[in-house]
């Protein structure tokens, strides 16, 4: 990003916010990175017209003058990839924020671009190939233990093919040569020196060998998602919701507990204080899967709302490129973007400064195309490479290395109205929608995922049947139907009053409320409740429905609803969320047995 390719120099002729016009740049290409003005602000060429190059500048442009020089690096915007990424906190241009602080203090200065990766650290490199072997793009040359939970695979860069002429071992810095891959006349005939560090243009998807269908769920530990609206590994989901509906809390819960190897959290136009919260909490939090600090598998990208708007546009691409890189090693990666609306607004703002003809609500006409391109970079894949070996994840595609990249984007629709362009354009491409509902969040029903508006297109029934319980899908279906019916009954009550309902219908309303309060609600802050394993989710749902069946039988046998409401099991169910994880399954199984036993036996038991 910072290498100067002996570049050509131009001059500033126009400045309007983050958009700067430059003349005199020869041989400049679209999306070349340039250094603007005396301060050397980082920018990217986004339009060429005759002699004029239009540049979006990633830093504040106040004080910039017409006539100041602009230097072309001749390179596109790239992400630096290599060991040392995990645990880092970057801005949208992959500048490490902790290093930035030592250079420019508490406030971010302009024109400071420290290198994204630690250049001094020596990494113990263990080779996996020998001299003379033939390798091609995506093959694993060797590994480096990056963190206690992630082994970093050093990959042959895509497009490189040839014979290993030399392979190194031992403690290496990111700039030292790991392997020399010798000219292969059939490809480009060049000798490649591979280092621990590689660069990749952020706007270009990294290649894969083959895409696989999405068949496994991404287990999130959030009941309403895992049970009702699961997303597949390698799938996509959006979380639209007005402000205060709990988008950020939900995204952070997913970042903490989702069953993946690597999490990339992109705070795109996010609140600084919330980033501070993440930064303080993540190093202290334990990964429920490994018991080690979460930062061992997390990369944070923080481009707060007051940081320059163009860098916000870039932050999404930086994040997804890092995600693809770990996917290529064979890991399951989750990228969370909070919020894609801020990214769309950055596009709109820059488009406005370019005086483009606007589409709907002022957004550029290419908004939907950009969103689709972004979400299509997700997927479960067979990684590039000729090897069958595997660096991390379980391989299941005929001994191949597989990885996945799941994308979850928060959407902040103005006024909470989902008919706006970003929500609508995203809905046409994503596989799951978790709609957050004001009426739920206002009564502090969290996560405020609406069970009527949300959906998933992933059919994961076979996986659940094979891995959790045969009747998983039946239970889910029954609970959903019950909630649906309860909403209809509520409407009747609103019009004609509760006495119009039968006892059986009152029972249904009661159980629907129990499902809402005791199952769908989940506290992100209570240790006993914030992560719900699939087994617990299953038994909770099973017990609730067992109670329903038990009461139906009892009502038919002549019991009164008030009696059934007062069953000791009701109070116990209501307290399940407070029960410590090691005691909850036996408790639930006991409840299930009691309720089912009495229902099956026909004895009312009240």
């Amino acid at each position, binding site marked *: 990003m910072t290498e100067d390719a002996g570049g050509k120099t131009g001059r500033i002729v126009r400045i309007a916010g983050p958009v700067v016009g430059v003349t005199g740049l020869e041989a400049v290409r679209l999306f070349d990175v340039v250094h603007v003005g005396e301060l050397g602000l980082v920018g990217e060429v986004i339009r060429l017209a005759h002699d004029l190059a239009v540049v979006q500048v990633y830093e504040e442009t106040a004080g910039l*003058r017409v006539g100041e020089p602009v230097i072309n690096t001749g390179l596109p915007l790239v992400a630096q990839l290599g060991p040392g990424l995990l645990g880092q906190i970057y801005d949208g241009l992959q500048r490490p924020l902790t290093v930035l602080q030592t250079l420019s203090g508490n406030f971010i200065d302009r024109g400071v671009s420290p290198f994204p990766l630690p250049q001094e650290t020596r990494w113990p490199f263990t080779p996996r190939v020998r001299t003379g072997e033939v390798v091609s793009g995506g093959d694993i040359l060797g590994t480096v233990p990056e963190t206690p939970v992630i082994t970093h695979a050093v990959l042959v860069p895509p497009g490189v093919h040839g014979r290993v002429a030399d392979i190194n071992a031992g403690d290496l810095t990111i700039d030292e040569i790991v392997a020399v891959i010798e000219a292969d006349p059939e490809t480009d005939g060049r000798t490649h020196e591979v280092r621990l560090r590689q660069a990749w243009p952020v706007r270009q998807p990294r290649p894969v060998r083959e895409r696989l269908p999405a068949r496994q769920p991404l287990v999130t530990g959030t009941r309403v998602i895992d049970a009702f609206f699961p997303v597949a590994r390698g799938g996509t989901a959006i979380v639209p919701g007005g402000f205060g509906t709990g988008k950020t809390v939900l995204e952070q819960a997913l970042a903490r507990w989702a069953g993946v190897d690597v999490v990339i959290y992109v705070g795109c136009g996010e609140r600084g204080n919330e980033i501070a919260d993440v930064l303080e909490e993540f190093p202290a939090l334990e990964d429920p899967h490994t018991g080690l600090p979460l930062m061992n598998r997390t990369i944070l990208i923080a481009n707060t709302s007051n940081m320059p708007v163009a860098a916000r546009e870039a932050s999404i691409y930086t994040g997804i490129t890092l995600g693809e890189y770990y996917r290529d090693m064979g890991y399951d990666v989750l990228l969370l973007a909070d919020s894609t609306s801020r990214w769309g607004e950055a596009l709109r703002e820059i488009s406005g400064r370019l005086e483009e003809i606007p589409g709907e609500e*002022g957004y550029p006409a290419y908004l939907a195309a950009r969103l689709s391109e972004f979400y299509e970079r997700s997927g479960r894949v067979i990684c590039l490479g000729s090897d069958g070996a595997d660096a991390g994840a379980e391989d299941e595609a005929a001994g191949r290395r597989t990885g996945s990249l799941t994308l979850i984007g928060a959407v902040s629709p103005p006024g909470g109205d989902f008919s706006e362009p970003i929500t609508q354009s995203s809905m046409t491409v994503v596989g799951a929608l978790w709609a957050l509902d004001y009426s739920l969040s206002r009564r*502090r029903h969290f996560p405020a995922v609406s069970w009527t508006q949300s959906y998933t297109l992933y059919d994961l029934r076979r996986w659940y049947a094979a891995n959790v319980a045969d009747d998983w899908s039946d239970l889910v279906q029954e609970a959903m139907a019950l909630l649906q019916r309860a909403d209809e009954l509520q409407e009747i009550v609103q019009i004609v009053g*509760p006495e119009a309902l039968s006892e059986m219908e009152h029972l249904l309303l009661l159980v629907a409320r129990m499902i809402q*309060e005791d199952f769908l609600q989940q506290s992100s802050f209570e240790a006993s409740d914030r992560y719900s394993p699939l087994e617990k989710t299953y038994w909770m749902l099973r017990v609730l429905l067992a109670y329903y069946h038990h009461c139906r039988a009892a009502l038919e046998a002549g019991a009164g609803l008030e009696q059934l409401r007062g069953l000791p099991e009701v109070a116990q169910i209501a307290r399940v969320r407070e029960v410590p994880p090691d005691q909850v399954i036996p408790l639930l199984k006991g409840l299930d047995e009691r309720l089912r036993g009495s229902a099956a036996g026909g004895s009312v038991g009240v």
Partner: protein
Amino acid sequence: MKAELAPPSLVTKEYRTVSQIRGPLIFIERTSEIAYHEMVEIIDPEGRVRLGRVLEVNGNHGIVQVFAGTTGLDLRATRVRFRGDVARLDVSLAMLGRVLDGTGQPIDGGPLIVPEASLDINGAPINPTVRTHPSEFIQTGISAIDGLNTLTRGQKLPIFSGAGLPANELAAQIAAQARVLGRQGQEAEPFAVVFAAIGVTHREVSFFVDQFQASGATERTVLFVNRADDPSVLRLMTARAALTAAEYLAFTHGLHVLVIMTDMTNYCEALREVAAAREEVPGRRGYPGYMYSDLASLYERAGRIRGSPGSVTQLVILTMPDDDITHPIPDLTGYITEGQIVLSRDLHRQGIYPPVDILPSLSRQMKAGIGEGKTRADHRFLADQLYALYARGRDLRRLVAIIGEAALSAEERLILDFADRLEQRFISQGKTNRSIDETLDLAWALLDPLPPEMLKRIPDALIRQRRGGAEDSA
């Protein structure tokens, strides 16, 4: 923060090439090497000087936004002088107790401020890694806020008001009552109030001045005043000047600064006015597409910095046009700020003060600012329980309006009654200053008539502790 002095203006350039005057903007031809956002002096035909700022440079012409309005300017005699620097504010600890205009000039008849530093009013983003998460409880003495929407140091919390609702009264009361608890006996942490009046009436300005005097806070207050009849584009400067002063007092002098800005709706109108004069492509309701980024550049200037004793807390007032919370101004604000306090016309009509509608209100920093050692261990459970029951109570009220109270179950009647008592006894408190203990005890008292099964949000142990032996007889 870099506290560098303004470089001497060696490169002052003067032009007589004004080609167009349009609204608050003037267009100047044949300029050379002027800077984006550079400050400009405009000398009108009578020789009077007004200030402006470069909004766009394109080749050899520039667009300048004139703060004092363009009335009286012409194309022939008007001269334009470029200062060679961006807008700066002279700052000093001696600003405390002073009244300044939107450019930082004293308007209280007192002496000029002798600057300790001269700072770019646009500030710079705080590096997110040096922020500390706001978690120190600020006791405002208002139950609806302390109990249910807790404010913390370094937070930005707006009050969404409507025309005629008592937002100013509430803000003044908070400014007078706000305390940080914890350190017993030594409550004398240095604090200051920075108040930005943005496009408000003389009446409102004098209301706040009187309030600050009455509470004895004048000596600790810096007032930035842009009145309703002052040039509207100066509103854009007033907010930035106030925040620059606040950051300086907080992070250089270690004060705990409460910034009150009223009324952000006027600020946004000014932003729209400038955008329209430049013939920009308008976004929703004519507001510019970059309004989110622009507001964020203000609101994000709240916070705490690790290793620095001071803090900037923002209490921002805005008027929702037609009480519409989905209007772009409250909507974009709510997406940036850490929650919102929403005032309700219904409650106001019933004579409830402060008329806080707790359902749409929210404090995002609440969970960090409450609990054992900060407020009380039972705080969060009580707040959740009050919210859950009140939300049901409000639903039931609608139901009762249709089908009558007779159709309700006994449980539903308890909830309905609870909602009424919450409004009348808990939210409504007039000008009293309640401690957090009083607020939470009051919350328990509201819940007393309800059986424990209805209190699903409160752990059993806490309910037993509260009710003790009384449970057996119930």
